[in-house]
């Protein structure tokens, strides 16, 4: 029996909801171990962990009945994702279809299994204006349509997390009152090879976030004890790690050529968060070939091509989901091209 399964069985499932974000496996990497984190959900909707819902379920006699249930909020689902170390690939995720009557978003993520491999997952969410009108009426549909990008992007992300972690759409009161035990893969620090790999990653990340080595006068302060400065003795980031050492994370932010190298466009037009192009979707669905929202080069309007400052790019991307200069933003706002 695999360690993972044994661990899951040791957790009394009458008392906890076990969330195992990995597939069943007989093997566990000698460089990894499994740890359990407990997450609690407050069943009172006031606290923002759950939504109260009523849903129709079929009964044994062939009929059906309304039952009350609790659905985890988007914020709580995100907390589960973080606890399980589920990584969202934001470069490959986003709106992939955008027409006047339909939008669709894809979310790509990865979760590490006990062998150390990262399982790539993909989920989509689409919103169709005509269907929306049929289900909620013209007025409410128009209101929702204003937030179509947010709805499909959040929807895709929630679908991905729920699928990856096996979270249910709705829980009964008794279920939601039980704590959730989330099993997560974590590095085994007593393995020298693993320590070395982690140090290498840390040095690369530290260099990106905190800058490279500095002049001696401004380096880490003098100390009466030994100091391990992650910037000291920069490692060659291009060196491959041992193939046996599991990657600490899916290669987020480590573009081909190692950290710091310019990212190359992936097969799907993204910036190459996963170095070997867009990952194969778990559900067998081919990634859409539709252009990504952030296809325009940073610093240029995607409509007229004029150079724009980073702050305008950020605002425009947030507001209009693509980089637009101020003039084109005004046109867009006034109902111009989309």
């Amino acid at each position, binding site marked *: 029996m695999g360690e993972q399964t044994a661990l899951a069985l040791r957790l009394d499932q009458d008392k906890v909801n076990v969330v195992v974000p990995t597939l069943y496996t007989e093997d566990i990497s000698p460089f990894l171990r499994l740890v359990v984190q407990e997450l609690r959900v407050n069943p009172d909707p006031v606290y*923002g962990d759950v939504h109260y819902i009523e849903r129709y379920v079929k009964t044994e006699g062939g009929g059906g009945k309304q039952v009350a249930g609790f659905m985890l909020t988007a914020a709580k689902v995100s907390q589960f994702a973080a606890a399980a170390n589920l990584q969202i690939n934001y470069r490959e995720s986003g709106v992939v279809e955008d027409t006047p009557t339909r939008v669709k978003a894809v979310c790509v993520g990865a979760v590490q299994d006990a062998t150390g491999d990262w399982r790539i997952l993909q989920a989509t969410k689409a919103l169709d204006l005509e269907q929306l009108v049929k289900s909620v009426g013209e007025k409410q549909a128009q209101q929702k349509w204003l937030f179509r990008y947010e709805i499909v992007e959040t929807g895709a992300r929630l679908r991905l997390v729920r699928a990856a972690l096996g979270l249910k759409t709705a829980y009964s009161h008794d279920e939601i009152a039980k704590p959730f035990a989330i099993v997560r893969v974590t*590095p085994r620090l007593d393995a020298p090879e693993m320590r070395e790999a982690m140090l290498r990653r840390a040095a690369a990340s530290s260099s990106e976030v*905190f800058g490279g080595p500095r002049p001696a006068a401004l380096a*880490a302060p003098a100390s009466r*004890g030994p100091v391990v400065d992650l910037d000291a003795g920069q490692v060659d980031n291009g060196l491959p790690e041992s193939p046996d050492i599991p990657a600490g994370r899916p290669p987020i*932010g480590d573009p081909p050529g190692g950290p710091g190298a310019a990212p190359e466009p992936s097969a799907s037009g993204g910036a190459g968060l996963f170095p070997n192009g867009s990952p194969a979707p778990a559900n067998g669905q081919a990634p859409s070939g539709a252009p990504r929202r952030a296809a325009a080069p940073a610093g240029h309007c995607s409509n007229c091509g004029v150079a724009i400052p980073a702050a305008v790019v950020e605002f425009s991307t947030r507001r209009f989901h693509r980089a637009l200069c101020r003039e084109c933003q005004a046109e867009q706002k006034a109902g111009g091209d989309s």
Partner: protein
Amino acid sequence: MKLLHTADLHAFPRPLAGLDRRDEWRRCASFIREYVAEQGVDLVVVAGDLFDRPRPDPEEFLAVYDFLKALAAAGAEVVAVPGTPSHDGDGPDRLGPTTLLASILGWPAAGRYSVDPGLLSIELRCGSPAVVGVLPGVSRSWLASRDEFKDLSPVALNAELAARLGNVIGGLAASAASAPGPHILIGHLSVDGCVASSDESIRMTAEPVLALGDLPDAFGAVCLGHIHGPQILQQRGPWVGYCGSWIRKDFSEEDDDRGFCVLGFDDRTGGLERVEFVDLPAARLLTVEADVRGATDPQQDLANLVASSIPTDADDEARPILRVRCRATEDQLKLLSPRALQEAAKAAGALHFAGLIPNIERATRARAEGVTEELSPLSALDSYISASPDLQPDREALVERARPLVEEVSRG
């Protein structure tokens, strides 16, 4: 081994409703100094935001320096990290004033001020070694300035930054793994599940948020700064907690405790044995809620309420900074004097009166009969005058005066 965990000093906080907070800050600093000396604290960790603004004036600069130096003089080892760049001023170039604090004033006179992530191995006065991983505060803009991250949304950028911080912490844990003594990580960042003083969870939309799983159990304790409300996110594997800031900067922090954490470690095994929260003598903030709509003498009622809200035997530390929020009618508001209320609050023992916030119940004003939105401006004026007896003698003059104005507006 006894460790004192503090953070978010914010020297000096901005005045609150005109009240200078420097005395309060110094009172807290003295309290910690005395605690360290009297309780034999071995190690003090300061998890960022030493200053309130990136260009502290000399008085602020020296106040922090004197504080750190006094801790070191009391026999404690001191390790501090810079916090948010908008407070401690250090950018990725590390040329900010807080770095200057470290390099000009010299170490170890005032402890260690670590501007880079790294691992410190420290011999404590109790004879035990301790290993301290340090992770200074970062800014999203540092990463955003790099070409390969420029096209990312703020959420994506936060995820990238969080991933890198996780890697750095993993490296610190890997370095610390075989070292003897308690392993402590100090950092200035948000961890999933932390709650800001506004009762809102910190989410990835605003800043990078690390998962608890990013904090390896190679550390016995993770001492954090950045969030002003004290809170423990995890009791073990590792212990993860925010000690909170020194003083309540405004009324959004009214309900927060203010203090520091004291962590006790087993000298032999290095394991965390106990955690204690010690209150700081920070001024209390108090909002007095009142409803005087039915009162015949609202001023006196409010003064009585204020007096009854403050303990009669309150010493300096317990004297609150007080504000009054009251529901009143428009007529009552005219009778309320903030100055008189201020005097009443001071007489009752308040440290400072921060203001009167009226919540006015306005009398509903019926629209004059016959005046509708469909009427032309002049017709509406005529109807309004008809409904207002005191204006009727001036009807012609008013209409004549209004006519050219309306025409001017109509012409655009």
